[in-house]
């Protein structure tokens, strides 16, 4: 049923709370990940260095060695993606986590769905980074109404430039490249803005709002950026599901 099951993504979970740790271990296993659970910071760092994992999922407050120190040590030699989990939800903790090189920051409490979306977003981004960029030519020829210009970072329609910023262009291009597929906010943050997603972070929504306005200004109505509530964004035709 799942062709990718031969090579399951491996996750290292470093979490000292027995209840939460066991639950995460079990649920992620059920989602099709190969999970290793470690309860101690020092041991976790050792494992992360010695074995190859796809993602490290780590609490900040840990016995032995706290999450931020582990991250600092790990970053000296490894570029493996790290998701921090913490009950410290303040903005300042989030920022210090990102500054030390975390790929995402998940405030506790979180739902399993949320965790899964974030792990998948990171795995997908890593996969995209590893793969050579597919030529956009096919898409370009196809787009008779919207022309993408990588040099200028802008789109062209009916002899008008939309005047997108770099981030807006990257976002629109990502949505365009993935056709009708709904992209999660977690993935778009990872891929376009290169940082983790937080509930109060409105940058992505603001970029989407600007893209919509700018596309409307140049009279492009073929497709629009639509919000799929609870999931993410998709660039789709107007008539669909409206």
């Amino acid at each position, binding site marked *: 049923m799942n062709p990718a099951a031969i090579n399951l993504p491996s996750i290292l979970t470093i979490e000292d709370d027995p209840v939460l740790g066991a639950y995460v271990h079990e649920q992620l296993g059920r989602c099709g990940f190969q999970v290793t659970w470690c309860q101690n910071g020092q041991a976790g760092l050792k494992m992360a260095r010695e074995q190859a994992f796809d993602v490290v999922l780590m609490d900040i407050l840990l016995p032995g060695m706290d999450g931020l120190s582990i991250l600092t040590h790990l970053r000296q030699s490894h570029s493996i993606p790290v998701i921090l989990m913490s009950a410290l*939800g*303040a903005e300042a903790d989030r920022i210090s986590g990102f500054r030390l090189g975390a790929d995402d920051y998940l405030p506790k*409490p979180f739902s399993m769905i949320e965790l899964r979306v974030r792990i998948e977003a990171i795995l997908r981004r890593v996969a995209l980074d590893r793969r050579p960029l597919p030529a956009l030519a096919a898409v370009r020829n196809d787009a008779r109404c919207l022309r993408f210009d990588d040099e200028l970072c802008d789109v062209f329609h009916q002899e008008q430039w939309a005047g997108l910023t770099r981030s807006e262009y990257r976002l629109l291009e990502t949505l365009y490249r993935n056709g009708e597929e709904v992209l999660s906010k977690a993935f778009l943050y990872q891929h376009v803005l290169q940082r983790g997603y937080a509930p*109060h972070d*409105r940058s992505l*929504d*603001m970029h989407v*709002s600007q893209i*919509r306005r700018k596309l409307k200004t140049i009279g492009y109505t073929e497709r629009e950026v639509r*919000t799929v509530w609870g999931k993410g964004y998709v660039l789709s035709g107007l008539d669909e599901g409206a």
Partner: protein
Amino acid sequence: MKGLEYSLKRLPGKHSLFWKLACLLIAFCLLMIWLSWSWGRYMEQQGAFLSDDARATLSGYAAGAELAWNTGGSAGVDAWLQTMGKRESTWLGVIGNHLQSLSSYPLTDKESQRLTFLRGLDWPVSRHAKGLPWLKIPFPVDPGAGALVIELPQRFMPGRYQLFWRVVTNGVIPGLFTLLLCVGLYRLLIMPLNHLREQANAWRADQLATRLSHDATSRQDELGELGRAFDHMSERLQSTVSVQQQLLRDLSHELRTPLSRLRVACDSEQDLPQLRERLGREIDGMQRLVEDTLQLAWLDTERAPLPQEEIQVQALWDMLRENACYESGWPVSRLQCGLEADCWVRGHLNSLAQALENILRNAIRHSPAAGVVRLDGRREGDEWHLWLQDQGGGVDEEELERIFAPFTRLDGSRPGDGGFGLGLSIARNAVQRQGGHLWAQNAGQGLRVHMRLSAR
């Protein structure tokens, strides 16, 4: 000129303690100088005269001499002198008008020279005579008949207590005055500081309501300023602590509500999916409460400036409107915006979006059926003045400030309709963190929430 103006500006103010101190010390110095000068002179003069006792005794001697002369002539004087010689150790003589001795012994040269009061060539020429002074006392009844001449006995010599008086005038009295000055300075400078110390000690004992006395704060000088600053500080401290306590009380109260609902759900017999759905709902509510409170605390305590960027209000409104329409089920047409595309403000995107979103949610919650919420604004100098108007019932005039306090829910709003009374507090803190202002006003129909933000 400039230097003069500058130094004039740097002079202490009219009510400064400097002037008080300067006047006090100058007056004290002048008083001390005058006192020691005039008193010293007075004492010296006083010390130069014979005491009344000495005068009476010596006058008595003169009368005795006259009596002896009148009754016994030279022989009487001789006898009298002999008796007196036993009493007084100093020289004693009785002379007539022509400076001749009335006794039978003529005067020696030395004695007559003394009688003329002339100083010898080799005598020290000083105010202070050498040896004991000689006095001539005329006969009291018939001064023409003769006079008594006497070398002043040592015991009658005035100024015997001169050292004592010098110590008193030059030591004790200035000392006493200085002590008085010290007491005055202490009362002037240290007593107010003692008040401050007492106040600080009261804080240590957690009595935050104590304030300085009126005397301490109504002074015009620097110490008065210090006292007022101190009082202001305790005011702030007290309000901060009470806000904190209030917040804690409110928070625990708010948490108790979903917890008691959970307890009920736990006890009542419900089927699993229903229980699960209910658990999820309550947990969501609690999580939102904790997040909002943390957010409020963060906005309240964090002092580092937020990174600012340029934000197009129209785009921001589009984004918020989409969310609001989804949440509330309102059609887009009921959320209107009167702003043009040229309305750009400087601010922190996330907190500004949160502030505007909270205000918008509040407006929607209090709107009547088919009510319209409208965002409008105008440029005022370097700022944008924005306002959001709803068509709800508005609030009482005296509640206009209170709605921004945390956990404030006005009577009209139902408990459990999704609000904890934190939205507007967060909004105000968020706007203030980026240098803006947020206030409310009753305008025509409904509430108008104003916002002032710096323009691009």
